[in-house]
């Protein structure tokens, strides 16, 4: 006996399945929005942190580093760098400020971005805010990121 297998049914499954699962995705997105405020550390976002995010973006930090695991894998994870640097924004600022303009011979090195003091403070505060985001199982797995 021959199977019935029609194109129109295949099409219905394509459209029906896509709409069904997209609606489900929207419902889950809605729920995520409801829950986020309890762990996304939004209360820490102020003008300085917002500026910090701009500094982060306009220097393309994600092109070398990961932030909460996303980005490039060339340089250390920064989602927990605030903790790694002994919960000190000063240490972060000092690190960024002290990068040699010509790099370190033979080694990977971070460019000297010549940030202003305001920008330095902002990026440090931004990284502190990111460290405060409550990730599942407290990711990254350990202090080394």
């Amino acid at each position: 006996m021959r199977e019935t297998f029609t194109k129109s049914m295949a099409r219905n499954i394509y459209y029906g399945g896509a709409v069904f699962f997209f609606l489900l995705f929207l419902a889950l997105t809605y729920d995520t929005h409801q829950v986020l405020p309890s762990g996304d550390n939004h209360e820490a976002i102020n003008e300085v942190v917002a500026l910090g995010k701009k500094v982060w973006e306009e220097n393309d930090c994600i092109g070398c580093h990961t932030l909460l695991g996303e980005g490039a894998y060339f340089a250390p994870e920064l989602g927990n760098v605030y903790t790694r640097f002994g919960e000190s924004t000063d240490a972060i600022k000092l690190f960024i400020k002290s990068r040699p303009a010509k790099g370190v011979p033979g080694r990977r090195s971070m460019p000297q971005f010549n940030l202003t003091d305001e920008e330095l403070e902002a990026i440090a505060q931004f990284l502190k805010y990111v460290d405060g985001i409550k990730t599942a199982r407290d990711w990254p797995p350990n202090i080394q990121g």
Partner: protein
Amino acid sequence: MDTERTKPLPGDFAIWIFIFAELMVFGVLFIAYAVTRSLHREEFAYYQQFLDRETGALNTLLLITSSYFVVKAVLAIKQDKVQQCVNGLGLALLCGCGFLVAKTLEFSDKFSAGIRLSTNTFYMFYLSLTFFHFMHVILGMVILAAILFKARAGAYNHREHTGVETGASYWHMVDLVWIILFPLVYIIR
């Protein structure tokens, strides 16, 4: 009877690919639930107390009955009894509506108690499993309704009724999944 064991799957083969995929998703979710439950026995047993078994049992009866009506509809159309087929599908839809009403009451009860997906692991599973199934009931009903209208327009007869069988197969899958879901989440502690 044994000579008939060579029939193809009832309905359109495409729906069966979908059914197999759905069964796989539900199967994995069931196992995930069982494993997590065995890791958090006390928590699960505690919150399971608050589930409404009566509505759950009623819903089982409703789904079984609606499946029965769908079977009757398929049998009817094979004898060109269009009106009987339409009636069967209509009654099945009615049972489906009953399921949706009962389930909506149950959900609203839980939501008004402030229970969300993120409340705890148990409610996460309870809500995702039952809500995922709830959406399947709606999808199944949309399919049945479409078939009902087509049947009423005279699109099916004893020779051509693949559409009815296709919808029926999907609806039985929705029933089948509930048959496991209900005891797993509501009964077993």
